[in-house]
């Protein structure tokens, strides 16, 4: 790779944040280099397609592997461990880190749950005195949420809820049978339920993208481009402007800066040839994911930025935080011996419960939402394990062999109801990632070392989740499966990083001493370097982060465009 051109912007990473920045900047007439560490990807390309595959098209029938931890047919190329790209954790702390290496990044496999943050989510310190407020509020982001809704498409319903804002929604699909049982159970328990909000096209939004055909396989990436992936929805249209050069299989290792401390471009490594190269740019937009962008900044040391670019405050990597999570399941006897029909639906839940106890007196701060799972899913590896274990709930003998097993399998098919909670944690200065002085990756770049511990807030919240899940599952007619985890297992609280909502490493703020970027994602220390991923989040609400990443990246991009028009960048 050799290119003498000076781009208006170099965008690092092609996920939600990078895809949006690339699309917006290119649409405004800027010349953009998009740098992606993985290969080009299009789920409509049959050589990369996993959608609509039958389980027997895989020798392992869709089982997970180290190379595809979410299953053999999952679209995401990447995982918890990448060959040649390790990370470490400080003793006594814990963190799991999912990285995608492909065009579109983690938007290829995400759950499409697309929730706006509400007004309270930007000002949590005002409510509970913990952490910090965002320097911006809902009113600053709302116009961008509105534009994202219309550009990308999201189904949902306007319910007028105070902290779960309305939007420009497509109509949602009707609930499935197990979801009707959940609705009835939740009503009995006094817990609200609403149609879910997912970025899947139940209705046409333009001529370029298709409409959902209800195969339930968004996690395999949609060949009809009827769900939101950054590649299919943002990068392809951006490339079609003719103003974007995409550099795939290219790892950015540092942002280069000049004598004035401003960025001049990026230094990259070609993963296939191991060759080093450089791209020149008038601005750099980091969207490599919260932790990868922090790593690039920390590795970008120079005379002007001795502790790393943007790190004069010492805050790069600090306040790393992930969503909380816990789950539980039940067997619903009323769903035995089901009539079998196609109930695949969209690739996710049709109903959900947003946080409903705002302002209640609880022994933890902040809330969580509830996700619903179940149904007559397509068999894959694992189907038929413990095939008739539910017989013990019926007083019948478990085990055996022969054709009677066929009856057991059909009898219990689709009789499981699952619940997962996703909550807000309290950001901590002491939870952070840093460069590990003792370890480098295959390209000689220092790797990240994570320091992360949950606090009592999250552990208490997980206990509340477990109580709630038991109540809801039983109210839905379920017999609880498994044991309720106790304090010894932190009430089933997912490990840090496991929910893959890690945010906060380059948080925004008005004070350069306690934040990395300003309210537009612009580094305090270098005015032509921007962060357009979830690193800028001051706090991660109990909402999934993608819709806010998209809205903030658009807002940052508009700021870049305006500054360039004013010739002040």
């Amino acid at each position: 790779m050799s290119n003498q051109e000076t781009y208006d912007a170099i965008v690092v990473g092609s996920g939600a944040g990078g895809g949006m920045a690339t699309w917006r900047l290119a649409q405004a007439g800027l010349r953009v280099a998009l740098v992606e560490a993985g290969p080009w990807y299009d789920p409509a390309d049959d050589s990369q397609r996993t959608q609509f595959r039958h389980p027997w098209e895989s020798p392992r029938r869709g089982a997970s592997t180290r190379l595809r931890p979410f299953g053999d047919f999952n679209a995401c190329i990447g995982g918890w461990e990448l060959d040649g790209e390790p990370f470490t954790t400080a003793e006594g702390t814990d963190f799991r880190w999912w990285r995608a290496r492909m065009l579109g990044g983690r938007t290829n496999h995400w759950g499409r749950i697309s929730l706006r943050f509400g007004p309270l989510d930007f000002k949590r310190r005002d409510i509970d005195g913990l952490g910090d407020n965002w320097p911006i509020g809902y009113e600053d982001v709302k116009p961008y949420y509105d534009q994202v809704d219309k550009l990308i498409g999201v189904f949902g319903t306007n319910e007028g809820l105070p902290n779960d804002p309305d939007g420009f929604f497509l109509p949602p699909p009707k609930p499935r049978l197990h979801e009707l049982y959940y609705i009835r159970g939740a009503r009995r328990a006094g817990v609200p339920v609403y149609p879910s909000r997912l970025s899947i096209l139940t209705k046409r939004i333009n001529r370029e993208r298709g409409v959902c055909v209800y195969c339930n396989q968004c996690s395999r990436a949609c060949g009809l481009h009827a769900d939101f992936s950054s590649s299919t929805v943002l990068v392809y249209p951006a490339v079609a402007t003719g103003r974007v050069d995409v550099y795939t299989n290219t790892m950015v290792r540092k942002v280069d800066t000049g004598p004035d401390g401003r960025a001049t471009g990026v230094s990259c490594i070609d993963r296939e040839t191991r060759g080093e190269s450089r791209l020149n740019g008038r601005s750099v937009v980091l969207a490599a994911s919260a932790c990868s962008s922090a790593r690039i900044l920390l590795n970008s040391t120079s005379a002007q930025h001795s502790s790393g670019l943007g790190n004069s405050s010492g805050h790069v990597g600090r306040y790393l935080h992930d969503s909380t999570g816990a789950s539980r399941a039940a067997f619903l006897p009323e769903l035995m011996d089901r009539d079998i029909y196609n109930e695949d639906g969209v690739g996710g839940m049709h109903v959900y419960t947003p946080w409903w106890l705002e302002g209640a007196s609880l022994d933890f701060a902040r809330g969580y939402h509830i996700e619903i799972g179940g149904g007559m899913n397509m068999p894959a590896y694992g189907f038929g394990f413990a095939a008739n274990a539910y017989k013990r709930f019926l007083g019948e003998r478990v085990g055996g062999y022969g054709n009677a097993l066929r009856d057991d399998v059909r009898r219990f098919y689709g009789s499981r109801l699952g619940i997962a909670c996703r909550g807000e944690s309290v950001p901590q200065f002491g939870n952070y990632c840093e460069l590990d002085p003792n370890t480098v990756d295959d390209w000689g770049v220092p790797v990240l070392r994570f320091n992360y511990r949950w606090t009592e807030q999250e552990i208490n919240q997980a206990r509340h989740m477990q109580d709630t899940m038991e109540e809801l599952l039983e109210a839905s007619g379920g017999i609880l499966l498994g044991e309720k985890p106790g304090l010894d297992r932190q009430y089933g609280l997912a490990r840090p990083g496991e929910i893959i909502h890690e945010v906060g490493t380059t948080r925004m703020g008005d004070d350069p001493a306690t934040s990395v970027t300003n309210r537009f994602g612009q580094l305090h220390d270098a005015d032509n370097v921007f962060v357009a991923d979830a690193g800028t989040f001051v706090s991660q609400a109990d909402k999934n982060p993608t819709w806010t990443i998209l809205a903030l990246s658009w807002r940052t991009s508009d700021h870049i465009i305006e500054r360039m028009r004013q010739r002040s960048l």
Partner: protein
Amino acid sequence: MNMNRRETLKSLLLAPLGAGIASAAGCAGGGRVNWTELPREYSYGRTAAERQRDRELFAERYFSEHELITIATLCDIILPSDHPNGGALDAGLPDFVEFIVKDMDYLKTPVRDGIAWLDSHAIDAYGADFIGIEEAQRLAICDRIAWPDVADPALQAGIRFFSLMRDLTLTGYYTTAQGFRDLGYQGNVANVWDGVPAQVLARHGLAYEAEWLEKCIDQSRRDITAAWDDDMNLTS
């Protein structure tokens, strides 16, 4: 790949170590055990690293012929082929088990040790290894280890092994076309979801709430491009 026809069969001589002539239930004839051979080439959106890994797995041979015949015999007992939708051998179970234990190598030892346990048990009880004894004797052994509630400590290793083989057999069968047919699975096709069928709702004594239904997609308008007024109301 078509596993409905049994043109491509793997065939191994039954009971090479055993004494008498035996025949595997359902699928054996002339002292042989037959099963549908599974493909060794797959193409489903793999990366180069994944293709390489699968090539290596297919090149490796883990089980001996004796072990493979024992697996075939056991899978056939668990899900026999005397059924319109076929059984374990029609679904190529021995090939599936061979592949999956190499892919998930933590399964290698449990399956190999389980076969050894089964043979020891058969020799102690009936004087020959599992595939060398009479069919009725094999079923008698399975009756002892197919029920996890049996407390006899001497049988626990066998019970664990049988449970594992039952899991692998059912998962290997239900992830084939025969298994889909047996289950009646209807999905994995493009369609338009318009709610739970009315007769199903009636059977469960459930109904959609009118207020909820009003918010849902009118599928006759799904192809009309979305438009909204300034108050976030869909107008198309």
